[in-house]
């Protein structure tokens, strides 16, 4: 079960929930579960970066998740 930390900005779409346990093997499955659970945040997931156990992926794609992964959804970051 991956522990997902939702951005506080989405709290009003998730009824105040900011962390959630989701059983998902890869990022696409995780996103699908989030869309089911909180439909209004669907379009926010298009341009977020994902941090998996401290490693930030600007384009999460099909990154795998470990059983005890900690996942954070972050704004994307530009390099200079």
């Amino acid at each position, binding site marked *: 079960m991956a522990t997902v930390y939702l951005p506080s900005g989405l709290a009003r779409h998730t009824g105040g929930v900011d962390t959630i346990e989701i059983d998902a093997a890869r990022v696409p499955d995780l996103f699908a579960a989030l869309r089911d659970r909180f439909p209004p945040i669907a379009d926010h997931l298009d341009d977020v970066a994902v941090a*998996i156990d401290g490693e930030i992926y*600007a*384009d999460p794609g099909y990154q795998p998740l470990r059983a005890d992964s*900690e996942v954070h959804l972050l*704004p994307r970051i*530009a390099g200079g």
Partner: protein
Amino acid sequence: MSAPRDFTYVGTRPIRHDGVDKVTGRASYGADVTWPGMLHGFVLRSPHAHARIVSIDTSAAEAMPGVQAVITGKDLPETTATIALGEAAIDLRDIGDNVIARTKVLYDGHAVAAVAATTLDIARRAAETIAVVYDVLEPVMSVDRAIAADAPILHPAMRTKGAPAASAAEATNVASRLELKRGDVEAGFADADVVVEREFRTPMVHQGYIEPHACIARCGEDGRAVVWCTTQGPFVVRDACAAIAGLDPAHVKVIPSEIGGGFGGKIVVYLEPLAVALSRKAQRPVKMVMGRDEVFRATGPTSGSKVRVKFGAKRDGTLVAASASLWYEAGAYSGSPAGAGAMCALAAYKVPNFFIEAYDVVVNKPKVAAYRAPGSPIAAFAVESVVDEIARELRIDPIELRLKNANAEGDRAPYGPKYGPIGLTQVLEAARSHPHWRAPLGANQGRGVAVGFWFNAGMNSSATVTVNADGSAAVVTGNPDIGGTRAAQAMMVAEELGIPIERVRSSVGDTDSSGYTDVTGGSRVCYATGMAVIRAAEDAREQLRARAATIWNVSRDAVVWNGGRAIPPEGTENAKPLTVAELAAKMTHTGGPVVGRASLYAPMAGPAFGAHICDLEVDPDTGCSRVVRYTVFQDVGRAVHPSYVEGQMQGGAAQGIGWALNEGYVYSADGVLQNAGFLDYRMPVASDLPMIETVIVEVANPLHPYGVRGVGEVPIVPPLAAVANAMRGATGIRFTELPLSPPRVLEGIEAAAAVPVQV
């Protein structure tokens, strides 16, 4: 991370072999190329900051002898494609509109038409005959004006994305709002013994690269285009040019020239799509070079800003609560680094309760682009100034206070994930023990310290390593070399293959000859592309091992590689160790050419910290100030080529010092840029600065084979506050608006003199 390895080349200071061309003037930059039959392009730019385009009459220009093509916004297709470009999936419609306006001009200098002619004089004179009828609108020139209820709206269709504040009105100039929260910030402030809040303002500033944008494009009869240009991202230019000029990316090739500085400002396209469109219309190559005034008016400075920061601390210096509101100018289209600023603001400190909100606000100024750790210097200026005030109020040494609250491995970053190994504590301890920290100060002098953070990007990188028959090697990547990365890459190949560095050629490919590679930027080249180079060299080495096995007729696993040689297993008759050269000489017999390749998508996982100490002397009669001593401490993970690591630390510090003391866009009330040149956009000159001492700290980054972290961007983050904190020490005044120009400083000194000076 395997046990620390003793390197042959990594950590040494070889001379970059591409340097001879640069010190002899042979290196070829964007504007240094002429192609046969070439025309010259010139852009007509809007004199208004905010206006609707009613009509454009180009007939006189098209009739002028020597003019071969004239284009306006109508000549470029409306594109709805998006490409990933840093902060968000940038809507290419915005970039296309920014390259040449369609219905509205949104800043002084916004391109409205372009002319290609046989000489630049003809192109310029023809452009002056183009009649543009504008319906001039009231410009929006600050975040305060932009968020006012009665503010003119730049983009009627814009709605605030992300987490709009409850009161977000329908039509708005706020493109997005972001929140970061932890704990109970109100309770935190209630628990604090001391609370300090200030509001800070910084002006729009420019990267200031000495080479203006330049390119030359040729569209052939077959509709295929070749673009030679100065850029940090040839692949970005290819994809953006194709989308904006309406070409199939498969028909566009981009050749990156040497690049005369970028710092993030040459990631975006400005001239290239225009040159392609003009060349397609004229069926001749078109060269376009920006003047310095165009670079200031119409490329991508970084945001001017308003930032409010509040900190609460206990008597013993423990930070218990923080809140921050950040308003960043996006310029004409959405996309300021407000989000990155919000995430970096508290990156250094363990603050249990915080609330941060960040607004991306459009104004009638050029669309901002990345500028070295985009968003972080602005946030650090505010945070490190208030932290310094807290230290003063509690009479705690400013480095001790920072050490007490410093994040370390295992702490949770404000933006979410737990930190891996990071070097903030080591950097602060290096600063505390350095002689500079306790050196005596003279009259009217003050000392300031500040820390800075940046994520350091990962992203896509590719590399190929070709082994030649004589045992030399050639590495090719797609990253233009701004700061000596070709030398670092050659060092990595020499290290992995065990051959002399002089026998490694390191070059930059074009979009046809190198694997897909993201921009040179985000401090990622030595980290991510470096990783690809190392893996490509390992791949070549493994192939050489296999060739040795073939020669000795043993299994590859039985062949040991050591010190640049394949070692045969014990007892293999008539088999002696073979060097790379010996193996390479037999390539044809053992299977053909040896080409190592690697490509990867590296996560962003080398976060780094720096701390700077600044001594400033202020003339109390005139408000003039001079940096008299400056020392940079930075965790770089592992310094591959220390000279160029030091160079990044010194260059970033100098840009930050300029940002703090003298740089800033000055606009008239009607939105016209007043200082579009190096005379009045005052960047630091050689006589403004002392020698900038550097102290390299190396806390290995576990995700890179050598422990490398990005180094390019962190050094610009601390100087704004380091200088402001030194100014506080020298004058007793907390200045909260940059630049700390002589008029502003003298005004503060005289105002303070009228009030009893609080110590």
